């Protein structure tokens, strides 16, 4: 599906990440429906809601892993999926997408580390080849990051020699090695054994507290969401049901849909 062409929407002050009437369809199935979201730089936002509600699609659209069916996404004042041509916005070419992606990092549910490389190679590959960093500098930064996720001694291991939790911490370090302004976390603990979850969440808590990276988090870990988020968005059927600070959403939700979802998730957890 190609990105629709259209005239430039009226200029306005856009927040750091701005979704403008974003639609996503797969065939007849509408996943996101005229969605508008504004996220400030440095904000930590958690997306919650039942599966199929479109949370992951939002992250995948931002990472350009899915194509947009309609609307606009703006990142740091620039359209993600479009390029300005005169006063019109036309679908972006690969070069534009590649440039835009460099500010965005993503951590996946199933880690997706490169199994043919060591841990250290996983971390330096993209900084060297995509950002053109000198090798020594990339290695130094990679070691620093591995140390910060508690895996300094694993740099020559291959991913299959690590536990799921360790692999996920490597994947977080790998995303950070690109120095992204935005970090997308897609159910990063869902594939982990319960005893390994705490280590990964610990790393992310630290990250949320000590950096000004803008974070979008899709998770079912409600305690974690409450601790790290500035804002929680409750999704259902491709729309935002309600949003607000964690205390409001978790302690005093307005909508029945949110109440039911939270009681279901919390009783299951």
């Amino acid at each position, binding site marked *: 599906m190609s990105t629709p062409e259209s005239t430039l929407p009226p200029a306005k002050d856009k927040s750091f990440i701005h979704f403008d009437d974003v639609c996503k369809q797969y065939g007849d199935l509408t996943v996101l429906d005229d969605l508008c979201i504004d996220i400030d730089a440095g904000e930590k936002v958690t997306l919650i809601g039942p599966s199929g509600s479109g949370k992951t699609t939002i992250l995948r659209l931002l*990472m*350009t*892993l899915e194509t947009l069916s309609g609307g606009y996404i703006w990142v740091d004042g620039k359209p993600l999926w479009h390029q300005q041509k005169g006063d019109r916005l036309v679908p972006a070419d690969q070069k534009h997408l*590649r440039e835009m*992606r*460099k500010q*965005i*990092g*993503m951590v*996946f549910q*199933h880690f*997706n*580390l*490169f*199994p*043919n*490389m060591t841990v250290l190679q996983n971390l330096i*590959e*993209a900084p060297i*080849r*995509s950002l053109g960093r000198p090798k020594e500098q990339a290695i130094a930064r990679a070691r620093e990051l591995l140390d910060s996720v508690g895996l300094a001694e694993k740099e020559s291991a*291959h991913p299959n020699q690590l536990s799921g939790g360790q692999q996920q911490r490597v994947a977080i370090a*790998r*995303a950070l090695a*690109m120095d992204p302004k935005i970090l997308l976390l897609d159910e990063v603990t869902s594939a982990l054994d319960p005893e390994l979850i705490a280590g990964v969440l610990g790393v992310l808590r630290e990250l949320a507290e000590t950096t000004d990276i803008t974070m979008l988090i899709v998770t079912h870990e409600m305690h974690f969401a409450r601790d790290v988020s500035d804002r929680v968005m409750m999704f259902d059927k491709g729309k935002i049901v309600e949003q607000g600070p964690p205390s409001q959403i978790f302690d005093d939700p307005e909508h029945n849909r949110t109440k039911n979802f939270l009681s279901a998730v919390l009783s299951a957890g």
Partner: protein
Amino acid sequence: MKWDMDFALEILPDILEAFLRYTLVITSLATLLAAVLGMVFAVIRYVRIPVLTQVTTGFVQFTRATPIPIQLFFVYYLLPDYGLTIGAVTTGVLVLGVHYACYFAEVYRGGIESIPPGQWEACTALSLPQQAVWRRVVLPQAVRKILPSLGNYVISMFKEVPFLVFISVPEMVTVARGIGGSNFRYVEPLTICGIIYLLSSYPASVAMRKLETRLEHA
């Protein structure tokens, strides 16, 4: 017919020389060509470049559907009529290499398709340039999975080198037939060829299996 040991020992050096100088060298060069060209075919078919992809697909189907001896005849005896003369050994390497490149391409394609979508997504998320995606992530992983099939094709190509008798390349079986013809004794030269083939194919398949296990654990 009785086995004549003295005759066998007398002709052994010539047959061995033909094996080392031609059969082995041609197999190695054709393998190299098939490995590289097959990769090019596979990538062209995978990334879907208009026209080029269709032409490549057609060429691959055509080559796989026609026998090697006929391809040899065409290149060696008919191309000179169109002003293109290629030496016999070069023709052998080219035809075997291109023929097997078409099989290699299919194997590579299977290998590429076996790469989980998550690996491609990780490459996108890290903004890896297209060339690095292929060279550093996709192909190294694909090669591990397809090594057994490639090995089998190389061994089968090795055993098809005697087809080059049709264009008079002095490889092992051609030399053996020549010796047989001039001495009216075929048993010894052809038996020696069979034994040499057996002694080299078997260790090759064992080595292949070893390499496979090593790569699996790497």
